[in-house]
């Protein structure tokens, strides 16, 4: 149960008190306002609520800070409340139809990629040289030349921080903004929040994860990848895309007698669909879990299915992305953007480990950092992500899509005793593009060794609030969903 208050300023704001959690929220969204009206929120606690506005510490897309709310609330009488029509006129629309969340699982070194420190001692700066970018005075390492030539297409944040130095913990922070651990509530992930807010459409699920599997290390999967305490209905719909662009949907393997491993091959697909239709009765359908139902719905929806068919792309374009699972997954992500899937998560790998048996070469370079980065990881990232940005801009998709690319933390600025780099949660980078993000800028800065930000540290909650706000899930909507009461919107991006 939530209660809504409406205050007036030159613009307007809505304040909500979630009665169950006693947390307050604020927002500026037209859509949220309409939802509030539909839900018959009451405004009978205005005066007491106004005194508690200071509890709210988020920041909106339009830069309305906590202080601004407090000042506005204190200055205006109740009669200054705006009408619903006025509110609607002033409201902020969602900036994006889709978020593409590119997850560099295992955590790439910030010093060896986008935040080099050429003036630091050799045992910090490492062996890689720096090259100029299209931004005056901004340099990357020589390992990412294509992205260095495209800094006019994205904004780079160099002051990310997180609060856990282990992969599962930092992974959950990176996906939910919250800690994981025994006895702790598992918060829903960004994609699950978007999924619940938007609801399921026809065909494609609202939260698609393109990965070989749920992000994990050799010990366990992260807790925060999906719906958490909301349940598996809000988990991501997993689609595997291999280096040739062949699609596999693991959820279908859960359905007795249905094993369409290769739906990209159209002849195979038709046979599999026939088999599905023969085998599936109303009773069996009802018995399936939500993911199996989603999978079946997808496979019987021609339009949705076509979105997964990379053979519809030109050979040249597919080549531009490179023959890698990551590259082809990014191309598939672009097709899902066109299909208006609200949240697409592309994960670099299933496992964090960079070089371990039966894992898929994540970014966790405790060893071989200076071998793997130039030999494999950075060339693949540089080629695939550059092609993705080019393709998205060429098709005019960036105005309505927010692209965020990051890992769960950075890596030790000081080279470790294995001539590599360990975990470093105190400073890392993220790349942002589209949906009104002002490209061609570097936000935040780290110190001379890349150890700590010298500007405001941007936390996972800030990343989440910014993504969700861009999707129209403002603080009112978040209050309704009882998620992310904290988090500072990254206003510098816009």
């Amino acid at each position: 149960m939530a209660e809504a208050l409406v205050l007036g300023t030159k613009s307007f704001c809505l304040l909500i008190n979630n009665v169950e959690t006693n947390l307050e929220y604020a927002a500026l969204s037209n859509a949220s306002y309409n939802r509030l009206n539909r839900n018959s929120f009451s405004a009978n606690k205005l005066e007491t609520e106004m005194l508690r506005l200071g509890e709210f510490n988020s920041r909106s897309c339009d830069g309305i800070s906590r202080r601004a709310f407090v000042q506005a609330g204190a200055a205006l009488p109740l009669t200054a409340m705006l009408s619903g029509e006025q509110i609607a006129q002033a409201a902020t629309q969602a900036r994006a139809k889709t978020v593409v969340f590119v997850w560099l699982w295992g955590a790439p070194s910030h010093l060896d990629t986008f935040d080099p420190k050429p003036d630091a001692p050799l045992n910090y700066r490492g062996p890689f040289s720096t090259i100029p970018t299209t931004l005056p005075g901004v340099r990357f390492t020589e390992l990412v030349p294509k992205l260095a030539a495209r800094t006019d297409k994205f904004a780079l944040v160099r002051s990310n921080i997180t609060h856990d130095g282990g992969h599962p913990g930092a992974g959950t922070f990176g996906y939910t903004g919250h800690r994981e651990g025994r006895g702790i509530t598992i918060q829903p992930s960004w994609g699950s929040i978007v999924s619940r807010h938007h609801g399921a459409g026809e065909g494609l699920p609202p939260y698609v994860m393109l990965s070989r599997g749920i992000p994990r290390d050799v010990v366990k999967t992260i807790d925060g990848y999906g719906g958490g305490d909301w349940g598996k209905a809000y988990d991501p719909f997993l689609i595997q895309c291999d280096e040739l662009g062949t699609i596999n949907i693991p959820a279908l393997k859960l359905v007795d007698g249905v094993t369409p491993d290769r739906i990209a091959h159209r002849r195979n697909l038709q046979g599999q669909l026939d088999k599905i239709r023969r085998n599936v009765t109303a009773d069996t359908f009802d018995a399936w879990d939500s993911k199996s139902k989603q999978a079946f719905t997808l496979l019987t929806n021609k339009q949705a299915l076509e979105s997964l068919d990379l053979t519809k792309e030109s050979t040249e374009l597919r080549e531009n992305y490179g023959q890698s699972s990551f590259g082809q997954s990014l191309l598939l992500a672009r097709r899902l953007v066109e299909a208006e899937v609200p949240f697409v998560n592309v994960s670099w790998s299933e496992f964090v480990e960079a070089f371990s048996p039966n894992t898929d070469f994540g970014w966790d370079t405790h060893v071989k950092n200076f071998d793997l980065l130039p030999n494999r990881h950075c060339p693949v990232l540089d080629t695939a992500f550059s092609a993705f940005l080019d393709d998205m801009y060429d098709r005019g998709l960036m105005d309505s899509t927010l692209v965020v690319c990051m890992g769960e933390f950075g890596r030790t600025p000081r080279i470790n005793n294995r001539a590599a780099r360990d975990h470093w949660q105190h400073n890392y980078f993220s790349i942002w593009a589209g949906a009104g993000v002002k490209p061609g800028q570097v936000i935040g800065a780290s110190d001379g060794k890349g150890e700590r930000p010298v500007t405001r540290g941007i936390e996972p909650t800030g990343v989440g609030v910014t993504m969700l706000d861009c999707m129209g899930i403002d603080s009112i909507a978040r209050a309704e969903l009882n998620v992310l009461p904290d988090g500072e919107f990254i206003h510098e991006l816009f």
Partner: protein
Amino acid sequence: MNSSNSGPSHRHAFLVVMTVLSSLLPMAKAAEPVRLTTDGRMKQDLCFTYDTQELIYSVLKTPQLIKLQRLNLESGNLQDFHTSANTNEIYIDFAKDMKHYAYIRNDGNLHTVLQVQDVENGELHSLNPGGGFACVRALTISPDGQNIVYSFPETNGSQQLWQTDNRLQNKKELTKSDFIDAYPRYSPTGNVITFTSTRSGNFDIFRMSADGTGIFQLTDNPGIDTRPSFSPDGSKIVYTSLRQGNYEIFIMNADGSNQKQVTKNPGKDDFACWHPDGKRILYVAEVKGKRDIYSISVEDMRD
């Protein structure tokens, strides 16, 4: 070339002049590359056998497995080198008499061991670098098959070159520095080792006597120069360079002079080795998003 133990400023000036001059030279005319594989998978660590003259390399066979593979250049036949291998295997090298070969095996989480196979008696020797995260890096086996040199990190964050015999006994540290030394390769006589090192501030190519003395710097570029390998007659070294902003294959004389660009491809060219005939270089090129093995003649460049 000058020794690293004397006249560093003169050496540096010489290298800079030489590098500038070499960069001003037009790319020597090389024949068109010939594509040898077509699967497009990630490949690295090319090496020839001395008897059957098959090409051995490591390839990403599945999303979770790198295997050693053998390619017969005449028949085009492709086979797994170790058919039953179920974990990552990389970086193989052979003794000239083919009685021994060495490679690196990924036997645990962020852990690799050096393996030496005695072909005659079937014995497999394994050098375990210790518990926890620990990786033996690149290796080279002496032409007579008696010694293996490999790179391994030190606790101070550096990485040194070590020598061991083919039963993995009598370990000896060849380089002692604060830098990262990597990718060693014996000369055909076994008297000299060329390798990559950061002792110039970034990755450049060096050479030294097989006992670790007399270290010479051969290249000096702000971009990466790495993965050197001697030609069969020992007069040339092929290597990868990022000096122009993209990974290309270069060759130079064994003393570092006469540096020439061999490939010019918008994609990444890397992991070069000499064909046993000394007239061709084989390497992995990324062309149209695919990473395949190409052969290119350098006969006209050998002056």
